């Protein structure tokens, strides 16, 4: 496991898209997770945003986020379907192969797992001609699906090759879902892992979860659940997960500081994590100073 496995998320960084891409790149990252806003709020329009991403040389980890899609009926479903199609179109235009869809927090959403699976199957079918995979994530304040175990149940029911799971350590820590539950998940069906920590021991209420998730997440190594985040990565690595890890750090302090500062902290988080997880894919260094001394 090395730097190549980790990516930043534009939501952590301040400034114009180009500056955020530059900061991530300058910190040594090779991939970046993008939001729809990065495209539509670009002063040059979507095409200019897409061009900036291409020129950055960064690989697109994924595109976020489709909210509140599943479990609706009638005109609400029809409306969300249009939104989903537009999001898939943006995702495709960007060259992203992954769309993040998070579990519905809508009061109008039904919770029958068969219904949720049917809706996610539909989303997956829409995504096939565009070459996009859909990663379904349990928000810790989701109305019916708020733990990854429930999201996994829906993904299995839907049974679509291009539909998988997104894990987010923030939500897993908030709900205190046992990591042993991961043993039931097929690592091939984990399409994305998002990593973040926070500063409080517990987030018992929905309001606390939402508020902390949107404003005060921190990088692994900066919060109070560091060992649990490291254990999550260790387990995923042992299970055979070889996909991307993306730092999903929403933090109001970081977005009012220059992007290189936040990118530097992300880089420290990679080191903090890789120091704690096996260095499976690190090449053996040939320039070890002690080797030279002994030679």
């Amino acid at each position, binding site marked *: 496991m090395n730097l190549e496995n980790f990516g930043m998320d534009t939501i952590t960084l301040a400034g114009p898209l180009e500056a955020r891409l530059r900061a991530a790149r300058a910190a040594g990252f090779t991939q970046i997770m993008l939001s729809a806003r990065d495209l539509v709020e670009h002063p040059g329009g979507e095409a200019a945003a897409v061009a900036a991403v291409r020129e950055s040389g960064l690989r697109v980890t994924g595109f976020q986020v489709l909210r509140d899609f599943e479990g609706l*009926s*009638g005109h609400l479903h029809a409306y969300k379907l249009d939104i989903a*199609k537009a999001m898939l179109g943006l995702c495709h235009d960007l060259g992203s192969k992954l769309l993040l869809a998070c579990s519905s927090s809508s009061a109008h959403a039904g919770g029958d797992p*068969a219904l949720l699976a049917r809706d996610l*199957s*539909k*989303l*997956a*079918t*829409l995504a*096939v*001609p565009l*070459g996009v*995979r859909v990663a379904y994530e349990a928000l810790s304040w989701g109305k019916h699906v708020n733990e990854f175990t429930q999201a996994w149940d829906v993904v299995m029911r839907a049974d*679509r*090759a*291009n539909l998988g799971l997104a894990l987010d350590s923030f939500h897993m820590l908030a709900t205190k879902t046992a990591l042993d539950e991961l043993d039931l998940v097929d690592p091939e069906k984990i399409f994305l892992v998002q990593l973040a920590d926070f500063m409080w021991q517990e987030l018992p209420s929905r309001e606390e979860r939402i508020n902390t998730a949107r404003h005060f997440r921190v990088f692994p190594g900066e919060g109070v659940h560091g060992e649990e985040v490291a254990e999550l990565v260790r387990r995923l690595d042992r299970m055979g997960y070889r996909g991307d890890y993306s730092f999903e750090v929403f933090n109001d302090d970081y977005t009012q500081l220059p992007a290189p500062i936040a990118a530097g902290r992300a880089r420290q988080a990679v080191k903090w994590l890789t120091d704690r997880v096996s260095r499976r894919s690190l090449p053996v260094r040939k320039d070890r100073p002690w080797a030279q001394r002994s030679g």
Partner: protein
Amino acid sequence: MTNRESNPEPTNPLGIDGIEFIEYATSQPQALGSVLQSMGFVPVARHRSREVMLYRQGPMNLIVNAHPDALPGMRAPTATPELKAIALRVRDAGFAWRRSLDLGAWEMPTRASAMELNIPGIHGAGDSLFYFVDRYEDFSIYDVDFVPLPGTAQRPPAIAGMHYFGVVQAILEERTHDWLDFYGSLFGFSVLPQGKKYGVLPKGTLLESPCHKFYLQLIEPPPGAEDIQWDEALVRVGLGAPDVKAATKALAERGVVFIDRGSVQPSEKGALTQVYLGGVTFELVKSQLQP
């Protein structure tokens, strides 16, 4: 909201009953027409309002579309002919279309002019479309939109019993399962067991239509193909023939050139034509399918 019971679907939910027509788009329809004629297709009718020609051979209908906005929502045809659409015969086109949209297909914008049939369709791979046609027994879609060419037999016979066997679709790496799910859930196609092969190109994954009348073959890029331009698209029509050697001979006499080297030499199992016009090939496959 209606209640939904979770009973199993029928194996052929759309009542698919074979291929009604296959459509190419090109800005040079004469050049493609001459290739098609050497393959035994005969021009039989012209569209009333568009630069569109209907070719036939035995049970096969083939449309060459040169209209500038040939396919709704798509770019104009290029000089290199492109395989753009498969029209499926179904029990009820409106039902097939609505069900497909319900399950996550992308709607194709309508393009019918006044007094023309509106053929519903959905998007497939790349720029391609699937149409749904339910008028193919007592009454045909061509009766409305096409004018027969004077003095032309409307039912030219097939050379050597040729019929549509299937269509080959190029897909990107590791996308086979995505497309299997797509065709399985929308149309009820099922994958043939590995090892059950047809023709001379024993690669890719074969999907059988629920009516058992034709196949789709999915082909990922071959290993070491990083430098090849490989997009997702419909790439080739497969023609079935009960006696491939007889069909190959008859077509060779009409000037069709078959690849005669390497692993795709003509045999009793199949044959592959050379590439015409920068992108058109046909594959012959031994087949007893009854369209």
